[in-house]
Every structure is written in structure tokens, then in C-alpha cells.
């Protein structure tokens, strides 16, 4: 049996997330990475509007709670004042790729030296299951009850691939948390993004394919299966951009 200890950057506050929600896992991966990089006393987080809005209760580092979608701009401002701090924004798909898409794209294009942790669960969690920009074709949401129909509801966005077309980002990877191997890979990606930020390499973006059992109306296990069987084939995992490789 592997016994994991709680990262010291996390508080003892009980998580408010639903059973099986990916937010808790990713909080842990972020905290572990910061701890392993020795940055606990030099990290600032920016939380979104979405289910992770209370995320600041779980991290011990200094934090800002941003308006819906504006975390990349807030992080930009923070980083200008504290260029040596590890700055991350943590955003859902509605936050990062709908209302805040403009801020996301331009922070990436400027090559701002901070990291976005992008939680793509393909749905609006907090407001109760409406369609997100990342909701896949045919998937039901409360604002497309027969399933997303591109003719009516438009098409889903591959955010990581889109950002990879820009010059500013130095590292973009898509990961998932549907099984332990994927969780380990997710951790590695998050840590690598932070390392590159510390090395002042530029904008880093980690897309995490997450699940939202409550709004999928699935059990936690079936929700994970949905990620494995439906989301991953549509949103392929892996490194999508890495300019540090080219440097070598």
C-alpha cells in the first residue's frame, strides 16, 4: 500500500467539491509540485469563478480571487509586481475558454511568465450543468438538452491546440486524471510547467481533462469512464507545444 502524505501547502479545510470531482486531485498536484520545487514561500495563486472559487481555502499561499474569466489579467498584474514569485491561475473551461478566452489568448500571446491550470470538465459545474465551450458534440447539458448540436450550439474548442499556434507559450500539455498513471503524468506536467516558469521561459498551460459527476449525472466511476472513453479520444493527451525541446 502506498501512503501519501498531505502536501504542506494544503490546509486542513474539508474540500467542498462533490464526490469524484477532479478539482481536489488537481489541487493536490499543484500543491505537491510547489512543495517539491521549494516554492511554498514564494507562490501566489489566482482562483477563478466556478466550482474552484473557494480554492483559496485549501492553499496556504497568498491568493487572489478574480472576476469570472479575468484570472490571466490578474496574474499578469501580480507577476509584474512579483516577477520572482511562482504565479498560477486555476480556471475552469467556462472561465478560461468562454468568458475569459480573450484574456487567456492575450496572456499567452504576450508570453506572460505564469502558468494556467485549465480544468476542462466539458461543462459549467458551478451554475448547474450548462454547455461549455468544450462540451463535445452529442453531450447533453442543461442548455442543450438533446445533446450539443454544432448546427445549433456551435463547435467545441481545442483550447490547448489553439494556444499552441501562438509564439508566446513555451509549454502546453494536455493531461487527465482518470487513472493513476494519468494522474502521475499530470503531476509531472504541472511540475514541469512550474519549473519552466521559475526559469523564466514564458507562458505555460496545462489542460486537465476533468470530470464533473454531478452534472454528468454519473457516478464518480462512470464519470471517470466518460473521460477515458469519450473525452480523451476527442482531446488527445500529451505535449502539444514545448519550445524548450527545440532549444536543446
Amino acid at each position, binding site marked *: 500500500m502506498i501512503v501519501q502524505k498531505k502536501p504542506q501547502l494544503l490546509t486542513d479545510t474539508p474540500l467542498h467539491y462533490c464526490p469524484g470531482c477532479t478539482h481536489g486531485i488537481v489541487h493536490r498536484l499543484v500543491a505537491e509540485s510547489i512543495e517539491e520545487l521549494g516554492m511554498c514561500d514564494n507562490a501566489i495563486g489566482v482562483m477563478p469563478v466556478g466550482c474552484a472559487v473557494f480554492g483559496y481555502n485549501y492553499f496556504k*499561499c*497568498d*491568493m487572489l480571487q478574480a*472576476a469570472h474569466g479575468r484570472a490571466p489579467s490578474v496574474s499578469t498584474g501580480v507577476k509584474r509586481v512579483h516577477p520572482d514569485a511562482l504565479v498560477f491561475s486555476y480556471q475552469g473551461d467556462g472561465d478560461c475558454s468562454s468568458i475569459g478566452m480573450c484574456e487567456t489568448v492575450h496572456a499567452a500571446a504576450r508570453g506572460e511568465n505564469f502558468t494556467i491550470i485549465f480544468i476542462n470538465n466539458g461543462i459549467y459545474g458551478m451554475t448547474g450543468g450548462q454547455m461549455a465551450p468544450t462540451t463535445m458534440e452529442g453531450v447533453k447539458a442543461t442548455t442543450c438538452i438533446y445533446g450539443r448540436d454544432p448546427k445549433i450550439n456551435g463547435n467545441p474548442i481545442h483550447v490547448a491546440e489553439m494556444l499552441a499556434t501562438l509564439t508566446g507559450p513555451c509549454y502546453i500539455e494536455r493531461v487527465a486524471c482518470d487513472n493513476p498513471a494519468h494522474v502521475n503524468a499530470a503531476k509531472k506536467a504541472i511540475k514541469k510547467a512550474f519549473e519552466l516558469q521559475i526559469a523564466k521561459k514564458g507562458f505555460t498551460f496545462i489542460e486537465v481533462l476533468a470530470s464533473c459527476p454531478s452534472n454528468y449525472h454519473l457516478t464518480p466511476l462512470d464519470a471517470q469512464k466518460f473521460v477515458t472513453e469519450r473525452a480523451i479520444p476527442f482531446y488527445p493527451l500529451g505535449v502539444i507545444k514545448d519550445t524548450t525541446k527545440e532549444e536543446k
Partner: protein
Amino acid sequence: MKKLWKGNEAIAEAAIAAGCRYFFGYPITPQNEIPEYMSWRLNEVGGSFVQAESEVSAINMVYGAAGAGGRAMTSSSSPGISLKQEGISYLAGAMVPCVIINMMRSGPGLGGIQPSQGDYFQATKGGGHGDYHCIVYAPASIQEFVDITYKAFDTADRYRVPVMLIGDGMLGQMMEPAEIPPMKNINRLPKKDWAVDCNNGGTQRLINSIKIDANELEEHNIHLAQIYEEIAKKETEVETYLCDDAEYIFVAYGSVARICKASIDELRKEGIKAGLIRPITLYPYPTKTIAKYAKKRIVKKFVTVELSMGQMVEDVRLAVNGKKPVEFYGRAGGNVMMPGDLVKYIKEGK
């Protein structure tokens, strides 16, 4: 030493002297000289400038930089200030101090680029959502713009509120002699024990406006209201011009107040006793000063003069509280009244 300054550039230099090191803006006429000046000048003093992708983004960069303890500023003009309102509400809610300049242009909608005072309601009555206020200054000259910009950063920090300065294209674009106050040493500014700065010595610092518990939020609302009350007591500023024996009192702010002064001088040459009350702060509003003159027997009426179809006049009426007639004279769309227009108005209405 006095130098000839363009309004917008003088404001930018005054901000730098006050210790502003972070500026975030988006181009819009008639305030472009502020971001343009900041783009090279901040570089010289070790600060940071970002031409943001929108006003929405710019104000949130201010939220980040000011939340992280820096002296941060943004400037815009009316349509851009509309876009900043969400951010201003968050700044007010999270008690993050900053300075915002609005060089007003005419509206509604895209409107025009000529001078206007059509954003009075937006500036003084909220603008964004929720129960908050900004301190709002309306300087009437370039020197006054400089002096108020210089102290606005201190005032914002003292109360932890956003401070807004409103002017119009006339003030932003014209040139006048002005003296920039001495450069502050930013290392000697009062420490901000609330700002995020990786201060993880056991206590997390949090910049936040969400308070989901009704009691907690009400407590916060009451706290903010108490701050606004204190601001009203200590920060209200007003100028009176020849009011002591005045029978006709103009109430006007910003560049319009200067036009009123010219017409008062004309009227007095003809033996008509006119005066001016010029609010320097629009929030808090100098209600008491107006109320004091409203009680004077000699005063026949008040005339509110604005570059709008009548906004501040509502606050004048509240202050006068029925004791005297309150009339309104306004021009809009970018048109500006001449001193002679007001002379004629008083003489014909007599």
C-alpha cells in the same frame, strides 16, 4: 519649477512622481497621451506598462498589481470606463486601492470624442454592480489634475478604495503651465500588510470579494459604508467663488466651472452678483456647502451648469432641499457653452 504641460502627460508624470509603477491601459481618444507617455516613462523608473487587449483586461491587471501591493493606475474614456465597471466593483469589494482616470467623451454608445460630463451618474452612483463607491475628483485645471493625481494614490491607500479622477477632452488635450511635485521614494511608502506578496509566514493573505454568507457580507457592507462615511467627513473638497454676497449661484465642476467663473466676472461688471460653488470631489459630494448657501436669504436661485442633459443637478436639488429654485443649464453631444451664454441666461431669467 513650472513647465508647459499637456494635460494627459502631466497626469502621467504626476502619477510617476506619486510612486505609480504599474500602468495598464487600452487606446481610446481623448486620453491616449497617458498610456503613450507611461509606455516609455515607466521603463525609465523600473516600472511596468502593459497595453492590454481591452479595458476589461486592463482593470483586472490593475486588480492584480495593486492587490500585490504596487501603486497601479489605468486611464480611459467613457466607453472604456463602462468596460472597466466590473473590475472596479471587484476592486471596491476586495478593498484594493488604485487610481482610475476618465477623460470623458460624449455618449451614449460610441457617441463622439468631444468633451462631455455625461458619466457623472456612472462615476458617483456606482457604475458597476453592488453597494460601493469610488472617491471621485473633478479637477478644473492641469495643475489641479497634477496635485490631485499625486495625492490620489495616498488617499486610495489610506482607505483601501479605488479613486477616480474625471476630466474631459478639453482638460486632457490643452496645455497649461504646471509644476510636478517631487518624486516619492517608493521604498518609503507605507507598507501594505494586506497585499499578496508571498507572505506565507503562517498567515495567508487573500484578495477576495466573495462572501457567500449573508451575515459576513452584510458586515462587510457595513464596514464599507463606515469607510465612505469617514471619507465624507475628511475628504470632501469644494471651492466657492464670490459666493458670500451672491444672489445667483452657479454649481459646476471641471472645465465648466472655469466657464462659469468667466461669466461671473462678466455679470459682476454689470452689477449682477453671481457666484460659483465648484465641487472638487463629486463623491463625497459637498452637500453641506450647498445647503449652507441655500439657507441664505440673499440667494435667489441656483443654476447647475453641466455638459450633459442634467445629472449632477439631482445632487444639487437634494442639497438645496426645496429651499431655493434649482435650475439647469446644459449642453451636450460635445458642444460647450460660452461664458456669454450663461450671462444671457442669468440676465434674461431675472
